[in-house]
């Protein structure tokens, strides 16, 4: 049996992705009475983008918004005694932490302790691992020929657990700047640190509860009314409040938000997010443990208050997820729009004309995709063909090519349709070709990943 130390930890969700709003995070620090605020900035694609920025400038590679965010948040966190935990270090946590230390000094916050968490970046170690026989099978496709794309690889980051975050907090960090720790570890770390939980059988369900709660709140507004199917029942979404977790030592928690903010927290907003972007709900695999989402009890216990209990799970997996990002050609795309009457027929004629233009321009594409905007772009084959004459229809084309010049031909062909196309053809600004990153998700042995913690004092 676990000896409960008692007590409660209050954690706010300060960011759900790179590009999220700052004002709800400011409100959380002003009136949330938080112990911690956790901020997630990374998506699967982000690491490859940030690695490229770091290649161009070794002082970059972290989330560009981070200094702006921290300038607003550091004084408030300092005043309220809230510790900040984020993965905004991206591909360069050390440069980010050095920048934040400088910022703390500028703001007169001398003595503030900024922790750097590193060790997720395996790009430099990849060749050694491949050399010693690591297979790195692609979890999506089953492919094993990683060597075939080796010269195009730009990033390789392991989704690490919260152990280094716990170590940083034990060393008195006021702000933790990590790289590709799992989004979830930003929540599990503070809870394991505060309650003294270890990776032992007795704590497995507690850690699973922390993982579950982390999952429920890590996308911030997504659990307070954002992304909701009941969008029409969500008040003041432009002033939405981000979620707060009140986590008790016994492994139960209440999810809530600040009074007077927009959105809502009810059993449905929590259920909606519990099911979001997961695999088998019996086995939600995270580096800190495995949560079983099929035992959770969800109950409304007040206005904008939902209690989660009976959370269970299994010990942490032996291997960690490793995502390898590589340069994977170019995409060229374009859109044209057509008016009633006969909007659909005009779009179909334009598709035929575009195909002829591609042929004339000698476009070399290895993949081509057409959508009828307003008809089948979002649901594809599941969309019924309209049995009426729609007010307007768009034509979208996207192609994948090996190089940029080929992808740019799409823009040229779409522009040519301004006059070659059916009467009434209208258009927005033509789109530039964009580079593509492929992702190769695989697994890596935990022993090959060593996280480190370093404290920088302002």
């Amino acid at each position: 049996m676990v000896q409960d130390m008692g007590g409660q930890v209050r954690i706010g969700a300060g960011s759900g992705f790179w590009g999220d709003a700052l004002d709800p995070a400011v409100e959380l620090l002003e009136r949330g009475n938080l112990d911690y605020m956790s901020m997630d900035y990374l998506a699967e694609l982000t690491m490859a983008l940030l690695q490229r920025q770091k290649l161009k400038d070794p002082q970059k590679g972290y989330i560009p918004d981070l200094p702006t965010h921290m300038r607003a948040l550091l004084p408030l966190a300092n005043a309220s005694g809230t510790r900040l935990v984020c993965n905004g270090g991206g591909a360069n946590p050390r440069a980010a932490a050095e920048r934040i230390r400088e910022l703390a000094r500028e703001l007169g916050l001398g003595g503030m302790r900024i922790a750097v968490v590193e060790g997720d970046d395996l790009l430099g170690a990849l060749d050694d691992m491949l050399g010693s026989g690591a297979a790195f099978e692609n979890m999506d496709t089953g492919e094993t020929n990683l060597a075939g794309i080796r010269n195009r690889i730009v990033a390789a980051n392991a989704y690490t657990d919260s152990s280094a975050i716990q170590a940083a907090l034990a060393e008195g960090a006021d702000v933790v700047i990590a790289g590709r720790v799992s989004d979830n570890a930003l929540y599990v770390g503070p809870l394991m640190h505060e309650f003294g939980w270890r990776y032992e059988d007795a704590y497995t369900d507690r850690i699973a509860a922390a993982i579950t709660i982390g999952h429920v709140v890590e996308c911030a507004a997504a659990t307070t009314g954002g992304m909701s199917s009941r969008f029409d029942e969500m008040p003041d979404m432009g002033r939405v409040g981000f979620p707060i977790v009140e986590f008790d030592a016994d492994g139960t928690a209440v999810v809530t938000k600040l009074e007077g903010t927009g959105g809502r927290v009810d059993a449905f907003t929590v259920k909606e997010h519990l099911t979001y972007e997961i695999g088998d709900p019996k086995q939600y695999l995270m580096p800190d443990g495995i949560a079983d989402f099929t035992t959770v009890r969800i109950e409304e216990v007040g206005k904008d208050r939902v209690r989660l209990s009976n959370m269970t799970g299994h010990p942490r997996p032996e291997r960690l997820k490793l995502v390898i990002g590589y340069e994977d050609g170019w995409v060229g795309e374009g859109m044209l729009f057509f008016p009633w009457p006969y909007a659909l027929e005009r779009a179909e004629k334009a598709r035929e004309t575009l195909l002829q233009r591609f042929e004339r321009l000698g476009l070399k594409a290895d993949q081509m995709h057409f959508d009828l905007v307003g008809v089948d772009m979002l649901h594809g084959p599941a969309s019924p063909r309209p049995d009426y004459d729609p007010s307007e229809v768009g034509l979208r084309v996207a192609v994948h090519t090996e190089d940029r010049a080929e992808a740019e031909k799409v823009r040229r062909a779409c522009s040519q349709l301004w006059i070659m196309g059916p009467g009434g053809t209208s258009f927005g600004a033509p789109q530039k070709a964009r580079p593509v990153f492929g992702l190769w998700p695989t697994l890596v042995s935990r022993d090959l990943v060593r996280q480190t913690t370093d404290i920088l004092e302002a």
Partner: protein
Amino acid sequence: MPLLRDIAYVRSGDKGDVISVGVIAKSPEDYPTLLRSVTPAAVKALMGDWVKGEVEVHPMDNIEAVVVLMRNALGGGATRTLRLDQTGKALGNGLLRLTVVEEGAGA
């Protein structure tokens, strides 16, 4: 004929080339109907060649929901797909087009 839209809510997203869709009964009474209506075969038939891999349906009795996993369903994954809906956020709602299978109907 009632559609899944009338008895369920949806939230969807991506994991690599997999689209994951949470389908939640609007009320506990709707849950058995939801379970009858959301089957791998029905989902495959609806989504046609946009879903190239297997479809799995995982029930969550505790919250009256199912998680539908559609494999090789995103044209190579969010970064690589040629679709506008790069993360499958909109495609999940497509499942609400499924026809509801009433009690006692068919197998």
